[in-house]
């Protein structure tokens, strides 16, 4: 890693729409412009003060080629530098942070959105597979998660029923989260007990939702001026695993471990226990446990301990990705949740955490991982 005279970068504000199973009465541009407008509100900055826009979204989910082109106006990108990062929004934040840290710009707007209700989500996932070997055998996101879960549960000595604690915690947190369209924890029998990909049940899988999130990032001098409590980005790391599912480690996520190592190192060799708050993304309950372990927040096969009694760390107080997964925006929503808590923004004051670990993922069977560390001044 190069030690260069890079500038400090802060998240000064962020906003999201409600995450909903279907925003049937609003278009992409409506969701995006709501998030972008709210991210600027109260900062004293106007869209003209923003130097550049980096956005995340999916041509496949949008049903449009170069879909960012159609949304440039709603993103406020007219006559600005703009780039589409077609990964989870946390990678877009990564790009924006580098651009400011390197001195190429001062203020950036990072946007991620998703409207899977207008698309066939199963096609989104299976089209991620290379077409020669994995696609023809009928592999999909459910069977892949099920195959991984079987191996993990066997190695960890857990049963499918043990996973209920993970899902119940996530949905209970989502009920308390006004940004998620969930009023009660589901009670229907099929949701909790019907196998969708043995050993996983519907309750074990992330629920796709519509929504948009926007985040304003800037260099230190501006952050100090416009925010009483800037959230500093202290470390970032990302790493990808091989594409072929059968070639990957069966019960762990070494790419996530590599991403976390890079982020911990960059943040001044912090350790997992230095963090009071974790917001992570996962495609399933077992995925959530594996991410916790890869982040060093639990020993191998002990991720479940966080859901049995009191956890020393606050994990996904937002509910995480299981009750609300706006594909492509999930990681940036995690960052919005974590940064809002650290900054003590209205509606998020409940926690006195001052360091947070944020995780995003992408690709088939969580192939790609991004980890960002943030903190507020004590």
């Amino acid at each position, binding site marked *: *890693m*190069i*030690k*260069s005279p*890079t500038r400090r970068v802060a998240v000064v504000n962020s906003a999201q729409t409600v995450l909903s199973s279907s925003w049937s009465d609003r278009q992409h541009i409506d969701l995006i412009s709501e998030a972008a407008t709210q991210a600027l509100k109260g900062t004293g900055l106007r869209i003209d003060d923003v130097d550049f*826009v980096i956005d995340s979204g*999916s*041509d*496949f989910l949008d*049903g*449009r*080629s*170069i879909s*960012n*082109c*159609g949304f*440039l*106006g709603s993103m406020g*990108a*007219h*006559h*600005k*530098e*703009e*780039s*589409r*990062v*077609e*990964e989870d929004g946390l990678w877009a934040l*990564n*790009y924006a*942070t*580098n*651009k*400011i*840290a*390197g001195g*190429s710009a001062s203020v950036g707007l990072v946007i991620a959105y998703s409207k899977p209700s207008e698309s066939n989500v199963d096609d*989104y996932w299976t*089209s*991620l597979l*290379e*077409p*020669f070997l994995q696609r023809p055998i009928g592999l999909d996101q459910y069977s892949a998660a099920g195959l991984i879960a079987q191996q993990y549960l066997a190695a960890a000595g857990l049963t499918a029923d043990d996973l209920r604690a993970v899902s119940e915690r996530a949905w209970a947190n989502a009920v308390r989260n006004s940004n998620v369209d969930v009023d009660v924890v589901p009670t229907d029998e099929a949701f909790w007990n019907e196998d969708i990909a043995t050993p996983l049940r519907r309750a074990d899988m992330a629920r796709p939702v519509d929504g948009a999130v926007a985040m304003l990032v800037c260099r230190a001098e501006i952050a100090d001026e416009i925010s009483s409590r800037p959230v500093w980005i202290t470390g970032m*790391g*990302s*790493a*990808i*695993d*091989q*594409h072929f599912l059968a070639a990957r480690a069966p019960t762990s996520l*070494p*790419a996530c471990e*590599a991403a976390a190592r*890079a982020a911990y190192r960059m943040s001044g060799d912090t350790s997992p226990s230095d963090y009071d708050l974790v917001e992570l993304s996962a495609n399933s309950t077992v995925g959530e446990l594996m991410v916790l372990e890869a982040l060093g927040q639990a020993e191998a096969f002990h991720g479940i301990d966080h859901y049995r009694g009191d956890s020393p760390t606050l994990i996904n107080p937002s509910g995480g990705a299981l009750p609300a997964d706006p594909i492509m925006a999930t990681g940036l929503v995690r960052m919005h949740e974590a940064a809002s808590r650290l900054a003590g923004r209205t509606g998020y004051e409940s926690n006195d955490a001052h360091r947070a670990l944020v995780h995003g993922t*992408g*690709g*088939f069977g969580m*192939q*790609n991982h991004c980890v960002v560390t943030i903190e507020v001044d004590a």
Partner: protein
Amino acid sequence: MNIAIVGTGQTVHAKRRTDVSQVGLAREAVVEALADAGLTMDDIDSIVVASGPVMFAAVNQPEKWLVDALGARYKPVVRVTSGGGTGLAGALTAINQIKGGAARRVLVVAYDKLSEGALQASISTLYDPFWGREFAVGIMGFAAAYWHARITALGHTEEAAAHVAVKNRHNAMSNPKAHMKKEVTVEEVLASRPLCWPIKRLDVPPISDGACAVIFAADDDAMAITDRPAWIQGMAYYAEADNSADRSMLQSEPLQIAAARVYKEAGITNPFRQFDVAEVQEPYTCFELSYYEGLGLCPAGGAAELVMSGATSMGGELPVNPSGGCMGANPIGATALIRLAEAAMQVTGKAGDHQVPDAQRALVQAGGGWANLRGVAVLGAEK
């Protein structure tokens, strides 16, 4: 911090590469770029994949598949996509990663395998599904409409555009990587079949399978890798919202904004005199004329005279597209990075038979979307 291109690679571009998959195509360019830089994948800290719209070849987020072919396991891999200009957007990502301290040596690979998808159908999905797609204009329809306006307002005649086709197709004859090697005359271009008037068959480049890879490093890292780095003196990529009421296509505003910014960074005040060579991405001949004006190589309305004077031909004062440009090969997602690689080859004296003698400073232009995403870069033999 000064950042340089320290290695480039390109596939042999062709109408249909049946001998390799998408990932094999990308790998071919990467292997050549690594060899050019004298590096291996172990030396690469981060990979940026830039490819055309994913629907072109029906594999969603294909960088995830590329990982296996490139040997990039456990490295940072991100894909940046921006239509036809995506290669330059990817290069800008790499530069920001290095400047931001996230990586020291970054590999950018751009590709498209257009023989495997329904190109025009995919392109037509650019447009708003409620009020834009009904017209089914694709890219050619609106490009023709704007060219027609420029013929009237700026004198970008069919004959002037034909000179672009003649020049670029002639230049491609000397480029060993070019896919299309057939010289044409002005008369042949003018007599070729209208596809969407005034755009005629020979105003249009081929559609190709191809890939390009470029490796970036800064300062001492660059000097340690090669004794001939191509230094990046400026690079920017700007957008224009589709629904802006004041949008004018007579001159491209995002191109003018990008050029002004990059020229300021690079100390360019008289582009026509200060550049020795230019590589521009011309999806149709009429665009190259428009770029001359947007890039300030001539005043508004001066493009026709400039191309017909021979000043932008090989041997002229400012050769444009010695590689043949898109007329030589047009793997859309790779074309912008190919322009950058070709410019790097020019200022490092590695362009072989299509070398502009003693080229010290090169101008690069690329763009995508519906002509609303525009990038500019300046490369030099010196910092």
